[in-house]
């Protein structure tokens, strides 16, 4: 009743091609941004920022990057954690070794380094596909795990193997309090989400999707697979690298390679599958789901008075994730994002569906 586009006529191409063509959608997004930028910083507790919102935002960014590769271009990657690690350690080295390096520049340089490494490990994708590529990206994962643990140059010869950053600031504003960290992450995520959305609507994004849907047909109509695949790897690992910088610098503060282990890669892949392959919105849904579910599972038994040990909870989380992955792949391969859009479609006809 309230949600329909009757009477909203488009009079220009710009109006017709905007991201949210329906006024109600634009209002909803505006409201969401208002809540995120203004209400949350005033109302949220420190626990909410530290344990829920900041991890959610950063992992959503990483899932967004991975979704470009897996969801839009159809190239599977099990090495996302590795590209996050490359971004984090590269940014750390730029920050520590160059005096007066601003955080933003270090972050972008970290992303660029991740891009280079990503393209390097993406080269095998030109010859191999699917599960073979999965093994190639696994190689990236194990190699970086080892490199950041054993090659002390990367960690600035830190004796404990763990590195830390302190006194972060952007344009003179310190990023120390949870609220400041939250706002910084939120801004970065918004910028990248907008950029990614526009990129996937552009010629490049359409080339990725053509390669994903049928590479032979795409090549026949004049899309260069080499170019499309490598740009997908580049853009994806850039975003993932930036997410790695945020995860290390803002969320963790001090970290070691285990923060970017293979479990992280799997976790991100699950986010993309549960959230929705080939959807920007899906990355956010998936990240929200995977960040919040363990926290809820931790709480629910307490409400009913059944004490569960942390080990049991983590096994339950494993089982639920596993079952959900299979369930989504069978029932709804496009994930939560598809359910969302089906819901919206139904809303447009409600309450007179005929």
């Amino acid at each position, binding site marked *: 009743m309230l949600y329909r586009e009757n009477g909203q006529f488009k009079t220009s191409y710009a109006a017709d091609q905007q991201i949210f063509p329906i006024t109600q959608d634009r209002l909803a997004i505006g409201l969401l941004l208002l809540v995120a930028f203004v209400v949350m910083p005033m109302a949220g507790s420190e626990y909410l920022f530290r344990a829920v919102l900041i991890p959610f935002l950063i992992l959503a960014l990483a899932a967004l990057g991975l979704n470009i590769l897996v969801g839009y271009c*159809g190239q*599977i990657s099990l090495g996302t954690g590795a590209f996050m690690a490359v971004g984090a350690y590269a940014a750390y080295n730029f920050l520590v070794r160059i005096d007066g390096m601003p955080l933003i520049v270090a972050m972008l340089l970290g992303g660029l380094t991740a891009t280079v490494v990503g393209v390097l490990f993406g*080269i*095998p994708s030109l*010859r*191999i*596909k*699917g*599960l*073979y590529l*999965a*093994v*190639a990206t*696994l*190689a990236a994962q*194990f*190699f970086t*795990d*080892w490199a950041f*643990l*054993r*090659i002390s140059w990367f960690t600035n010869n830190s004796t404990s193997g763990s590195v830390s950053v302190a006194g972060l600031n952007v344009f003179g504003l310190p990023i120390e309090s949870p609220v400041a960290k939250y706002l910084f992450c939120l801004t970065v995520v918004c910028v990248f989400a907008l950029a990614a959305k526009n990129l996937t609507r552009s010629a490049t994004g359409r080339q990725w999707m053509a390669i994903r849907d049928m*590479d*032979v047909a*795409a*090549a026949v109509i004049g899309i260069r*697979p080499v170019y499309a695949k490598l740009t997908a790897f580049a853009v994806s690992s850039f975003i993932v690298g930036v997410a790695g910088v945020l995860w290390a610098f803002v969320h963790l503060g001090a970290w070691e390679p285990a923060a970017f282990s*293979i479990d992280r890669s*799997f976790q991100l*892949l*699950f986010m993309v*599958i549960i959230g929705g392959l080939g959807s920007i919105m899906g990355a956010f849904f998936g990240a929200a789901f995977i960040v919040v579910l363990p926290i809820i599972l931790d709480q629910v038994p307490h409400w009913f008075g059944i004490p569960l040990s942390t*080990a*049991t909870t983590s*096994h*339950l*989380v*494993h*089982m*639920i*994730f*596993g*079952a*959900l*992955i*299979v369930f989504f*792949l*069978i029932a709804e*391969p496009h994930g939560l994002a598809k359910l969302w859009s089906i819901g919206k479609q139904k809303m447009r006809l409600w309450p007179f569906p005929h």
Partner: protein
Amino acid sequence: MGFFLETLFGGLMAGMLYSLIALGFVLIYKASGVFNFAQGAMVLFAALAMARFAEWIPKWLGFESLLLANLLAFIVAMALMVVLAWVIERLCLSKLVNQEGITLLMATLGISYFLDGLGQTLFGNDIYSINVGMPKDPAMILEGTFEGGLLISKEDLVAALISAALVAALALFFQKTATGRALRAVADDHQAAQSIGIPLNRIWVIVWSVAGFAALVAGIIWGSKLGVQFSLSLVALKALPVVILGGLTSVPGAILGGLIIGVGEKLSEIYLGSFFGGGIEIWFAYVLALGFLLVRPQGLFGEKIIDRV
């Protein structure tokens, strides 16, 4: 020279175990075109079941015999793997017929997470030991040829013999029995196999059970050597480069690939490790597989992959 040979033997033994796990991958891939990421989780699950039932069954039934306990535990664990195969086929694979390989791969990733959680919820998450009476003491051989002789673990030797027996048994099963012929037919062409009356669903249950059997044997050998714990599931990831190296569709390839990776890992760790700062065992196998993928994607013995793009 003696030291080199010892390293070589150590690598061969480790490689034999990789081969066992890789075998499970190859069996399932051949018969159903599914790249079974859950093989590692199956190894962990089977080993956990074996370890715990061997402990529980004597308590329930009130007897002491180690042999009987192991035998019963083996039977129960095997039955569990067959049930598992049936459930996986029923609830997952049969619903994903005709999907792309990448979807199936992700589904098995989900299965592996589920199995990891289920196994540890049912059987606990400590380190358990499997005692099937493997000889633990090392043996010296060829004392006449080399000074000081060669030190070889009898346990590894027994493990290698068991692996070899398993491979031989599987080869016989595939070549000589009607079911084996049906399995090969399905591997060759799903549609043709179905059209001459081979029930695909039953074949898939059988092949997952056989893979479960391979997982159980691999789990027992690994478990009695190093104890059963969660890391077993990760060790199994090493089998991925093995199958890439050997070729996804080739049983001999899985064996040879495992041996090459095992030996290469140990030798490179000893002779090259010092240049890189040690610990290159972690990635050696993967990078070797990566290099191989660039030059010869089908592996040593795999069927040639023909792609026009």
